[in-house]
């Protein structure tokens, strides 16, 4: 079975090489003479996807059956592991997750092949060729340095088990979404390279590339949100974002991807910002590649990083240089020839989007500087330093402030030349509400300024979005549903941002209490009374646990509900994990953690957090993603829908 997987991978590698070369030649030969060669593109893409799918299935099968003759399974699995985690453990290690990457890459090529029928043949062929080159690089990397199908003799009796932190439902969904997002930006990258090769970036290019960027962006949004949520409930610190280098590696492509998304709109609508959009498309995927490099090369210090192997690091660096270098070389060579068509006044929708690009790109730079500085400082200055959350908060947040302020205003501006005063006037109610939130918040919280500012900002964005869509639909529901989905998508996504901002600000009011409690004793956090009943032992499939029984009481001391935080011990990896007990009513999370147990007194250290509005952080991200889905469903992006015979010409709405 493993050999089948290995063979399938090798076949995929050969096909990827073909996909890199044949359609490219065909595209240069032109639509007529190169038609046959260009047709090989979709064919290769489809079969490559099939082969990688078989390979991935083979690996998953090995995990499902606990086939310890496969080295990868022996190192990362265990027969007592619950079945779900056996399956998801497929991507809980370097080789398996790399295979997931490759699967996603192949999937992207196949998607372009399947849904790219509306694209001109030459463009599609070029896009597939570039995707083929990237796939070739990664397949070579997998086959040569990170083969998941290597056998081990003698076959061990038992596997070494997976890190218990990763045996969690969140893990099932976090990497697939994340990688889909990461890899999805390769399509935008390929589109940019194809446009540069052809020497043409026009409005139609902008329209074609947008759904691919939307798809990658919304998947990445969900992937990051899942990772953050998972860290929150699994790692037991009550935090949700640590500015860890690997987290930053996923955030940088997201920031640039958001800028790209907005920039592509300008290309589509006004044929301006071409150079910027192309550059952003190249850089977004470059950030994905950089992220892969940072995580797998051992160059960075992180909780998330896979085991380091310098050989792999050098290979990925080479891959990075070839891919990004190729894109940037194309850019340096061809981009100067791109001429903008639409001119616009500084105060306009385009102008606002330029501001958006500037702020998001600078924010990305801030995160990149903080993440990479320790490496460069060590190398060039011999200085060993740590760049922790304080730096990131101090540099990133101030850049978000102007963005947040400008967002509702920018969304109200018209193209080419806008009436700023008019837009501001229409937003007076939003400003008033935000100011009210600010004043009330400062008064109530006693000068806990930053979170209150965040809440005011969230109110500003939310009200601004409502006013904008209300104005556009003239407050009529029937007109609202007939608005282009892209407009609705924008509103929903911006509302999602407001919700997340509110959640993040709410966490600024989090309260915490720790106490050593004996059975029957109580503790209080922010008005909530918690009574400790005792600690019991429990048994899981591959762990033993200490479980604390906590009861949350009403003011009259009756029991409202119970919580059971645990500490689990996994004998095969000799690791202990804390399982926080979380009770949410959407407006706040009650987060309880079991600390040290003092058996002699049957007492335990209990830590309880009250996290106001914590769920909003991730609900907001889901809403943002839904906005993306809404935009994707816009009929103008109906990609790949078979061309229907129409009775007569259908007038397209002037947009």
């Amino acid at each position, binding site marked *: 079975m493993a050999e089948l997987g290995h063979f399938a991978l090798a076949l995929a590698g050969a096909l990827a090489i073909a996909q890199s070369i044949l359609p490219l030649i065909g595209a240069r030969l032109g639509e007529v003479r190169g038609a046959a060669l260009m047709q090989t593109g979709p064919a290769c893409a489809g079969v490559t996807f099939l082969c990688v799918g078989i390979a991935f299935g083979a690996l998953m099968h090995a995990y499902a059956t606990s086939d310890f003759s496969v080295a990868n399974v022996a190192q990362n699995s265990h027969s007592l592991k619950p079945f779900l985690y056996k399956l998801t453990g497929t991507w809980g290690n370097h080789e398996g997750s790399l295979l997931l990457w490759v699967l996603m890459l192949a999937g992207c090529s196949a998607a372009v092949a399947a849904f790219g029928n509306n694209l001109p043949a030459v463009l599609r062929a070029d896009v597939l060729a570039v995707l083929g080159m990237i796939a070739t690089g990664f397949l070579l990397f997998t086959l040569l340095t990170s083969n998941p199908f290597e056998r081990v003799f003698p076959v061990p009796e038992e596997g070494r088990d997976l890190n218990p932190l990763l045996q969690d439902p969140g893990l099932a969904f976090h990497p697939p979404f994340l990688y889909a997002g990461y890899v999805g930006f390769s399509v935008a990258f390929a589109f940019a390279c194809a446009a540069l090769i052809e020497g043409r970036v026009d409005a139609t290019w902008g329209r074609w590339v947008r759904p691919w960027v939307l798809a990658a962006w919304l998947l990445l949004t969900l992937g990051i949100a899942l990772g953050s949520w998972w860290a929150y409930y699994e790692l037991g610190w009550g935090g949700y974002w640590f500015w*860890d280098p690997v987290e930053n590696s996923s955030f940088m492509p997201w920031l640039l991807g958001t800028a790209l998304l907005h920039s592509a709109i300008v290309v589509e609508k006004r044929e301006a910002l071409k150079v910027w959009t192309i550059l952003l498309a190249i850089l977004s995927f470059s950030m994905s590649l950089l992220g892969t490099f940072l995580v797998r090369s051992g160059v960075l*210090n992180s909780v998330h990083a896979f085991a380091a192997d310098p050989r792999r690091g050098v290979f990925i660096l080479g891959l990075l240089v070839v891919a990004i270098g190729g894109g940037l070389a194309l850019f340096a060579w061809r981009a100067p020839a791109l001429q903008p068509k639409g001119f616009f006044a500084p105060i306009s929708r385009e102008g606002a989007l330029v501001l958006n690009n500037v702020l998001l790109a600078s924010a990305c*730079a801030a995160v990149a500087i903080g993440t990479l500085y320790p490496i460069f400082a060590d190398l060039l200055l011999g200085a060993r330093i740590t760049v*922790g959350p304080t730096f990131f908060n101090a540099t990133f947040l101030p850049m978000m402030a102007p963005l947040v302020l400008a967002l509702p205003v920018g969304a109200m501006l018209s193209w080419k030349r806008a009436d700023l005063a008019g837009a501001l006037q229409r937003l007076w109610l939003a400003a008033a509400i935000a100011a009210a939130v600010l004043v009330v918040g400062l008064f109530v919280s006693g000068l806990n300024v930053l979170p209150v500012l965040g809440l005011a900002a969230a109110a500003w964005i939310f009200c601004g979005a409502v006013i904008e869509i209300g104005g556009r639909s003239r407050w009529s529901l029937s007109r609202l549903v007939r608005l282009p989905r892209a407009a609705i998508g924008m509103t929903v996504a911006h509302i999602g941002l407001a919700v997340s901002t509110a959640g993040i600000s709410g966490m600024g009011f989090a309260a915490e209490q*720790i106490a050593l409690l004996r059975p029957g004793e109580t503790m209080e956090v922010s008005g909530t009374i918690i009574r400790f009943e005792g600690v019991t032992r429990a048994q899981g499939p591959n762990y033993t646990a200490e479980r604390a029984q906590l009861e949350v009481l009403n003011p009259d001391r009756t029991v409202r509900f119970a919580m059971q935080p645990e500490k689990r011990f996994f004998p095969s990896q000799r690791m202990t994990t804390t399982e926080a007990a979380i009770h949410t009513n959407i407006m706040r999370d009650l987060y309880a953690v079991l600390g040290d147990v003092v058996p002699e007194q049957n007492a335990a250290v209990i830590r309880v957090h009250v996290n106001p509005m914590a769920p909003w952080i991730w609900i907001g991200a889901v809403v943002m993603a839904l906005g993306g889905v809404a935009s994707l469903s816009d009929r103008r992006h109906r990609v790949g829908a078979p061309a229907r015979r129409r009775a007569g010409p259908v007038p397209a709405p002037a947009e």
Partner: protein
Amino acid sequence: MTRLALALLLFAAPALAAPDPREMLENPAQEARAREISKGLRCLVCQNQSIDDSNAELARDLRLLVRERIAAGDSDDQVLAFVTRRYGDYVLLTPPFKASTALLWVGPGLVLLAAATGAFFYLRRRPAPDSVAPLSDAERKRLAKLLDDPA
């Protein structure tokens, strides 16, 4: 509604707690200082956690050390100096502003400035002069005639 308001009021109370109550200092002000300092010190055996968050033994030892120094009368700076003298700047989660970190702290601002300046000039640019071909003499004469005599 009143419950929400009350809850909001209570949220305002500062958090006063230590990772383990048995480590806590008696004096709440000192304990609060200890928590703040701990949040800024890196746990050296974990990756990317502060000693305040970490369950590691070394983290606990350092937490106790910090509290000892505070109780002994050290100022916040003195406590930090005590730890960095033994473990180097690496142990600080927030890098100090020194020659070696100047570019780090100033970098993001510089990038923003550069990007904003670039955007400023980009937005102010005039349309390319040759985007519209200038009128030839004959065309100009025709234009003048049309303007003077619209009929």
